[in-house]
């Protein structure tokens, strides 16, 4: 990992067209501005991890647990439409 120190308003250039600016520093929080081509995805790491973890968990479920849940879901759906 490359480690750089930047002061407020200083910038970093990644490759030819990704530009990072330190916009604000307050308390323990840094506001970072990112300019990048729109085909480059920029995501908070926690969001990426949540999505990965839901995928991994879903892939690990056994068929009997899923079948039981499907039956429960069908029952709940038909109950709501009978009212």
């Amino acid at each position: 990992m490359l480690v750089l120190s930047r002061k407020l308003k200083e910038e970093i250039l990644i490759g030819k067209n990704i530009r990072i600016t330190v916009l604000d520093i307050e308390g323990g929080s840094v506001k970072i501005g990112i300019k990048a081509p729109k085909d480059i995805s920029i995501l908070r790491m926690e969001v990426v991890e949540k999505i990965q973890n839901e995928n991994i968990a879903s892939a690990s479920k056994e068929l009997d647990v899923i079948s039981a849940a499907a039956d429960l879901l069908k029952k709940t759906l038909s109950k709501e439409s009978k009212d």
Partner: protein
Amino acid sequence: MKINTRKFGEIDIDEKNILTMPEGLPGFPDFERFVLIEDPKTAPFCWFQSIETPNLSLVVMNPLVFKPDYQLDMKTLIDGRDWQGAKQEELLIFVVINIKEGDPKNKITANLMGPLIFNLEQNEVVQIALCDSDYSHQFDVLEAISNMKNG
């Protein structure tokens, strides 16, 4: 074409239905080719099955069944990738489903924060992250259905 699956054994699939994930599947970076399987025994769930390994299949379903007002900014989605020919109405949305064992009953959760978008015209699927929305990655499906009638 025949493929091997852990949950359904050997199944026959039409090669025209093979979907690729050009941006990969988060959590499973080595796998890119999948099919969508509908098994009547586990409906309304569908299965997003890898054709490269029998063990990999995700439980997915159509979110409009339990959240009819679920909406995405389709235009930004289409613009951000090479899907210029795609019409918004032709893109399908599925969400990944999980089951949490609990007391008194199990919870069925849906990842509304990271939907799977199917472009059937190009046989491509991407999983996008809606980081600026309020949608949860563990949305309570059964509770939403109960609230639909009572709300």
